[in-house]
């Protein structure tokens, strides 16, 4: 097992290097730092001195890959690639445009992100599976038919509508919870109710339908027919046999996203004013803070790869048929 995990983690390294190269190409090769400086300082009336100063402040005034003016190993280390891109492997993300350390900021903002994302994830899983089970139980009846219709309708509504509509209905019209904001400790509860509910609802259509398909897929298998043939009641067949087997694809599908929960949700956080990583990213995009976006891209893929590794491990844990070797 340990052997497998280690091998799996070694596989992740070339992928991370690939991600690093992609971000490096995107941010420094497609456009030179000079272009970025001009964009940030305004295209017209920008002096070469101002551009140099901008680049110097951010440490972009070095060669990309190879520094001729240095000696020995410094030829490679005193370059943009080494200092800006390769440094991300040790979580040295540099500083944002407002001068704050990005790594520190990320650490502080992970918790608020998790405070929404985790309840949405857990509550969502329970709600979607319950509804999908009900629909699978009443398959080929009008309950199932209208359930699917409702799912398709829910899927077709923009997630922005759920947020805006929810804020309007619950906060503005009924004054039940604050429209937006965030507080520490227990105080956070009242701010989190609305985003969590909206998060669960906006994912309901696609996920419920998805889980229903998985259940129906499972119910068409031979062992289910055997169970029915033994004379087991439909409820036992569903809960004891189908549910447990269907949980394999559902759980492993869910495990992938667990690490990504740390990243939070871009739009929900910015609408509800929650100081998490999602709103951090949006702010960075809007203020064109390239360093932050770069850091988030790297962090996001790192978390995703961790998710993939966890998925593989969880497969072996829940499904005894899968052997590691």
């Amino acid at each position, binding site marked *: 097992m340990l052997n497998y995990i280690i091998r799996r983690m070694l596989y992740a390294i070339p*992928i991370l290097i*690939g*991600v690093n190269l*992609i*971000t490096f190409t*995107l*941010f420094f090769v*497609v*456009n030179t730092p000079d*272009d*970025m400086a*001009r*964009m940030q300082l305004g*295209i017209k009336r920008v002096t070469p001195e101002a551009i140099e100063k901008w680049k110097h402040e951010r440490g972009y005034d070095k060669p990309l890959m190879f520094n001729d003016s240095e000696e020995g190993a410094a030829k490679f280390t005193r370059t943009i690639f080494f200092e800006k891109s390769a440094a991300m492997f040790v979580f040295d993300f540099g500083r944002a445009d407002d001068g704050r350390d990005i790594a520190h900021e990320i650490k502080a903002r992970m918790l608020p992100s998790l405070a929404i*994302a985790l309840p*949405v994830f857990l509550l969502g899983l329970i709600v979607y599976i319950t509804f999908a089970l009900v629909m699978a139980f009443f*398959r*080929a009846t009008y309950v*199932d*038919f209208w359930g699917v219709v409702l799912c*398709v*309708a829910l*899927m*077709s*509504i*923009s*997630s*922005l*509508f759920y*947020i*805006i509509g929810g*804020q*309007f209905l619950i906060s503005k019209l009924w004054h039940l919870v604050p429209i937006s904001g965030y507080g520490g400790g227990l105080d956070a509860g009242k701010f989190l109710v609305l*985003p969590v509910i909206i*998060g669960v609802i*906006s994912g309901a259509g*696609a996920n419920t339908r998805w889980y229903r*398909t*998985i259940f*129906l*897929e499972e119910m*068409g298998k031979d062992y289910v027919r055997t169970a029915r043939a033994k004379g087991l009641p439909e409820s036992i067949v569903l809960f004891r046999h189908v549910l447990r087997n269907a949980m394999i*694809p559902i759980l492993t599908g869910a495990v992938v*996203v667990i690490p*990504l929960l740390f990243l939070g*949700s*871009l*739009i929900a956080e910015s609408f509800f004013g929650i100081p998490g990583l999602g709103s951090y*990213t*949006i702010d960075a*995009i809007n203020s*064109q803070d*390239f360093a932050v*976006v*770069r850091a988030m*891209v790297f962090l*996001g*893929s790192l978390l*995703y790869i961790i998710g*993939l590794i966890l998925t593989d491990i969880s497969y072996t844990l829940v499904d005894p048929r899968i052997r590691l070797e």
Partner: protein
Amino acid sequence: MTMLFKPVILWTDALIYLLVMVVLAFVWYVRRNEHMLAPWRRVGHSASGMAALTVLVFFIVIGLLDTVHFRPTVENSSNGEKVYSVEVLSLLDVIAAPLRTRVEKTYSAPFAAYLYARETIELLDGGQIREFPRLQFGGAHLQNPEVQLFADVAWRAAAGAALGFLGWCVLVALLGALLARRDNARFLPTLSAIRRGTTEIPWNAVLVTLGLILSLLGAALALSTHYHIFGSDKVGQDVFYQSLKSIRTGLVIGTLTTLMMLPFALLLGIMAGYFRGWVDDVIQYIYTTLSSIPGVLLIAAAVLMMQVYMEAHPELFDTIAARADLRLLFLCIILGVTSWTGLCRLLRGETLKLREMEYIQAAHAFGVSHWRIISRHILPNVMHIVLIATVMDFSGLVLAEAVLSYVGVGVDPSMISFGTMINAARLEMAREPMVWWALLSAFGFMFALVLSANLFADAVQDAFNPRVRTWSLKAGKPQRTGREEDPETKPVAVAVKDSISP
């Protein structure tokens, strides 16, 4: 002698024309091949699918009208010479000219005769009062809006709807006559067969949808000549006009993105599955790396860099429309690059299975070249996956556009789209009384488009996926009829959507 207008073909226009030609060629090809026609017949038998297709066709017609661009001439006042305007118009702009040109000062509610905001008005005797001024165009023909407005709106709506209904009746009669002639049946029994839904294609579903669309359209057109039926926005532009213009943007994002990613996905996916070995390793590495970057972050990074690039290279475009269009094209390319990986993986898996089939082994044994095996034997057998992925991606991409525009990495702010409409209207939620109309019409149009796309995608998926089964409602008890959505073909764009939506 100068022409009245100068045709303009923007980048996305050219690609849409290309797409239309590809679709037409595909239709022509399918019609000649019975085995390819069969699944489409199954699509044709699905009532919800055909109703959805009717709505989609309506949207597509509007989108295509909005694709034919040109620059009209304007008289040069100094020497009477004609020059082309810098403003790029489309056929839709010409048709909807009354909507486009009748611009109010600022917000006005749907069917309002008065402006949303108070204004100081100078009275004749020199005094001043603050009140809501009359709109310049909306309800301007009424003497006394308080009394007349409701009756006028109701009358115009009824007249428009009646006209639409009349047009619908003509269409029904035409269809009945056509079907009757084809089947050598009499006219009235054909009509009643259509009504009962016993025709091969569920014409009743199509006609009911069409009747709804035509009546609503008739009422909307009749009303919009004298009112802003969905109100007007901050700069006084008609919201109905903006909603119509947004349709093209949504369609472009939904279709061109797939057009962009198909070559990658097809080529790499089939190559990886067919050649295996190091080719497979390299391609797998590429798509694992790309797909490990969360979609929206990669899109954001790429769009940021595109903005820098476009700022640095202003010589690429000559008009504002060209600039917005180029940005839309870049967005499609970026969305395509980030979303080809899912389809690529599916195609690789399918090709791996196919290449072990006996007929392909036989082709190998006969010394058929790789290229020929791929194009003659593998490609036609994976096309159903491509088709399903294409239709399933569409709705996700339309929804993603709105979110991306909100995040600030979507279409150009000067381009009218559902995303920019929502983005502009969102800021006005806090006003009292609330400005809700732009938001609601953007969401409404988007919902209609995405819902019909979803329903049509389901019908296509049902018809083309031979492996899966469905639970028939009519049979009363669980019955396998051979179809159900396939868990493996989870839409690719969901990857984008998942990482965006909370």
